[in-house]
């Protein structure tokens, strides 16, 4: 840590990890409800568990992105953060707002929450991933504006690097496209069409800029490869991301009432969306192979390489699997979508956040470069347990999805949704077991922050 004000990132990272734990616990509850339908019913119905699962995910992604920004932007700009107190204040506002929202989901029926927060004044609730009360959404906008102001001013007064500009561009895009969350017409087709401007243009658009910037930063720091080389890669990767990903939004416009030509635009462009992810894999391995130094934080490099591989598999390969419209006709809204969603989110966004946390946390906690070997080894175990179990979660859901598509939509005698669900229960059980392994990995991950802390820190073997 080179600048005192970077330390504000620590708060964000700790909260992110706590929310991550909540996300996984509720994921396991939902996984069990898939096979034991009345588990926790009616106290925590599936939809409530799902809101907590997805909303804690979104909030911890945002927390970690902000933490990453507060860490890397001052370092890249070679100056203190413009207003550290504002970053701390916004942290607490964001955390309290998120906590109250999740408590609202769990403590009162959703319709009551809508009433309490006066949703009828400006209805935005009850849409997938955007379930937050309107007042929470406004809070997110305020936090985002203060955050952008803070990092924007820091960049203005400091050195302008490509990493910082791409990071800022990604974060500004995140804030801008979130504004579509406030548009909710009665016309369902219009509602869905612009809902995707938030959801798709986040995860298959501007978030990838954030991902790329964080990855580039960590690779610059850990490999010692010339910044010019890494920045060139970064530009070309994010160029391919937006060139394919913006029109790629069309793969959501196949069956929601939009014109048929989207089947062409969406299929062709989204079929190219794996390209930037593949380039990212090549990039990360190339940089590590060409490293000019041995960085003692081995586990951070493991996370960085893991991100590059798993993002390609989850977002790239599993996305391609069902993105062509003739395939999507049968798989749309099945467990295939769930399979892709899990591995893509884990591979791209969970892992990049764990990469920057893994790189920055030892420094934020006062180490020179890295955690002691014992702590790193435990974190590596958590890497493999979480990553391998996520591969299995994805494979089991894919199996479930293929059978579901066939039995419900393709066979001689298409069967009803619930009849099909009963027949594929085995896959849901296996997914739940893999989920428990993921939880064990997460427990080890959290434990790695506490083990061997009095040992001397790892040094590079030169």
């Amino acid at each position, binding site marked *: 840590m080179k600048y005192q004000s970077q330390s504000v990132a620590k708060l964000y990272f700790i909260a992110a990890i706590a929310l991550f734990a909540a996300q996984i616990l509720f994921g396991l509850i939902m996984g069990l409800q898939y096979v034991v339908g009345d588990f926790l019913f009616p106290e925590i119905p599936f939809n409530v568990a799902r809101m907590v699962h997805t909303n804690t995910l979104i909030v911890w992604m945002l927390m970690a992105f902000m933490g990453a920004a507060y860490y890397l932007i001052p370092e890249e700009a070679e100056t203190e953060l413009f207003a550290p107190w504002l970053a701390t204040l916004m942290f607490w506002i964001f955390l309290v707002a998120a906590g109250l929202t999740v408590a609202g989901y769990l403590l009162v029926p959703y319709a009551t929450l809508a009433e309490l927060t006066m949703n009828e004044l400006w209805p935005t609730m009850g849409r997938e991933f955007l379930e937050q009360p309107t007042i929470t959404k406004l809070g997110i906008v305020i936090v985002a504006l203060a955050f952008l102001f803070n990092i924007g001013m820091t960049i203005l007064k400091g050195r302008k690097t490509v990493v910082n500009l791409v990071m800022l561009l990604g974060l500004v895009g995140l804030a801008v496209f979130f504004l579509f969350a406030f548009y909710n017409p009665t016309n369902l087709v219009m509602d869905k069409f612009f809902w995707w401007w938030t959801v798709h243009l986040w995860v298959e658009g501007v978030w990838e800029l954030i991902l790329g910037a964080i990855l580039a930063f960590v690779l610059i720091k850990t490999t010692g490869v010339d910044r010019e080389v890494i920045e060139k890669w970064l530009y070309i990767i*994010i160029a391919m991301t937006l060139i394919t990903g913006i029109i790629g939004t069309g793969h959501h416009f196949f069956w929601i009432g939009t014109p048929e030509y989207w089947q062409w635009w969406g299929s062709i462009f989204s079929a190219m969306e794996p390209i930037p992810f593949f380039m990212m894999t090549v990039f990360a391995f190339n940089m590590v192979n060409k490293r000019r130094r041995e960085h003692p934080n081995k586990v951070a490099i493991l996370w960085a390489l893991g991100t590059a591989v798993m993002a390609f598999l989850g977002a790239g390969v599993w996305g391609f699997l069902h993105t062509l419209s003739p395939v999507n006709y049968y798989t749309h809204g099945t467990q295939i979508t769930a399979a892709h969603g899990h591995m893509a989110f884990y591979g791209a966004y969970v892992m990049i956040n764990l990469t920057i946390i893994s790189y920055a946390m030892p420094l934020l906690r006062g180490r020179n470069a890295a955690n002691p070997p014992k702590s790193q080894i435990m974190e590596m175990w958590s890497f493999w347990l979480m990553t391998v179990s996520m591969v299995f979660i994805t494979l089991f859901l894919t199996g479930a999805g293929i059978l579901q598509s066939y039995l419900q939509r393709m066979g001689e005698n298409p069967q009803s949704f619930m009849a099909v669900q009963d027949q594929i229960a085995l896959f849901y059980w296996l997914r739940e077991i893999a989920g428990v392994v993921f939880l064990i990995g997460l427990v080890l991950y959290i434990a790695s922050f506490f083990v061997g802390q009095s040992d001397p820190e790892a040094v590079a073997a030169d």
Partner: protein
Amino acid sequence: MAEAFTKSMARNIFYGGSAFFFLLFLALTFDTMGQLPNRDNRAALEGELGPVIAQGKALWENNDCIGCHTLLGEGAYFAPELGNVYKRFGNSTDAIKGFILSRPKDGIPGRRSMPQFNFNDEELTAIAEFLKYVSEINTAGWPPNIQG
């Protein structure tokens, strides 16, 4: 990468490419908005049942129905697709109302069950009319069959 390919070339591809394809996306969006009136069943929204359908959509949202069901294939995958439920239930809003009304308060032992929302008749009608409106959107032939 080859030395001939410089960072500023990469930067220009990024800015130029992103701007071009975003503008193309806007153009396609503009065209889509022009075509939607013939596809999105807005006649129903503008008809006399319009306010009822709007109330139905509000109830759909305020009870987070999307947290279990899919609607035109989007949502959660825990419960059946409802974009075509009106047709699956024999083109009957009464069948939809009856189903929602009949859900046991404490669920079904060992099985998934929809909660009992205690809607009154007006609310049930609104939800059913909303689902009827959705079923009449032109979705390019999706879902493949009546099972959704």
